[in-house]
């Protein structure tokens, strides 16, 4: 079984996603990335946010503010505070989005990745969007 209590899972999520200090452990959480970057992938990313990242005209990663981009963690999980909307496809190849990732915003460093349910088929005119049911869970 996981050897981490839910309360501490909430602390970890709060620290990483929203720059919330952890009392007596990380007393100051400021000074890090002001934004996290959200990317879309056509397969499970293997290394960093460039790995299997979708490519089409109009696509760019979307920032979530840190703090504020993710809701207050509860039950060991944190949901997106708002819809995460990517640019509409106006050209290029597109593809099927199967995964998303969250990065630090620097050097393509990947923090979390997960599946996209259901997958999004990106063709011309499509604007991919991750809803407020988008979640990061810690166990």
């Amino acid at each position, binding site marked *: 079984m996981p050897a981490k209590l839910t309360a*501490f899972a909430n602390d970890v999520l709060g620290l990483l996603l929203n720059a919330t200090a952890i009392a007596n452990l990380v007393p100051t959480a400021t000074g890090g990335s002001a934004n996290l970057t*959200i990317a879309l992938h056509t397969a499970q990313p293997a290394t960093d946010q460039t790995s299997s990242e979708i490519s089409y005209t109009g696509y760019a990663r979307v920032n979530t503010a840190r703090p504020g981009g993710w809701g207050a963690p509860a039950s060991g999980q944190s949901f997106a505070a708002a819809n995460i909307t990517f640019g509409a496809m106006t050209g290029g190849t597109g593809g099927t989005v199967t995964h998303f990732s969250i990065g630090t915003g620097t050097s393509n460093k990947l923090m979390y*990745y997960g*599946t*996209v*349910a259901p997958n999004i088929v990106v063709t011309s005119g499509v604007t991919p*969007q991750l809803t407020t049911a*988008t979640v990061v*869970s*810690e166990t």
Partner: protein
Amino acid sequence: MAKKTEPRIVSAAGIASASTLSGDVDLSTKIQTAMSDAVTQAIADGITDPMEHRKLITAAKEKVIAEAEAEAAAKAAEEE
């Protein structure tokens, strides 16, 4: 003549389950699969409200954890 495409938003939920410190990768994978399946099934059932998806995601996670805890408890009892 090229077919005209209508602009449209296609929405989905991103589901990430991690075991940053516990190292229980199997459990995280089970949780992520259960949460993803919950959203996919909800959409197939015509439920499109993300707030409803949140409830289903949370319930799916709690169910997997409860089953894992019960399994661990049963295993411990057997070993005694």
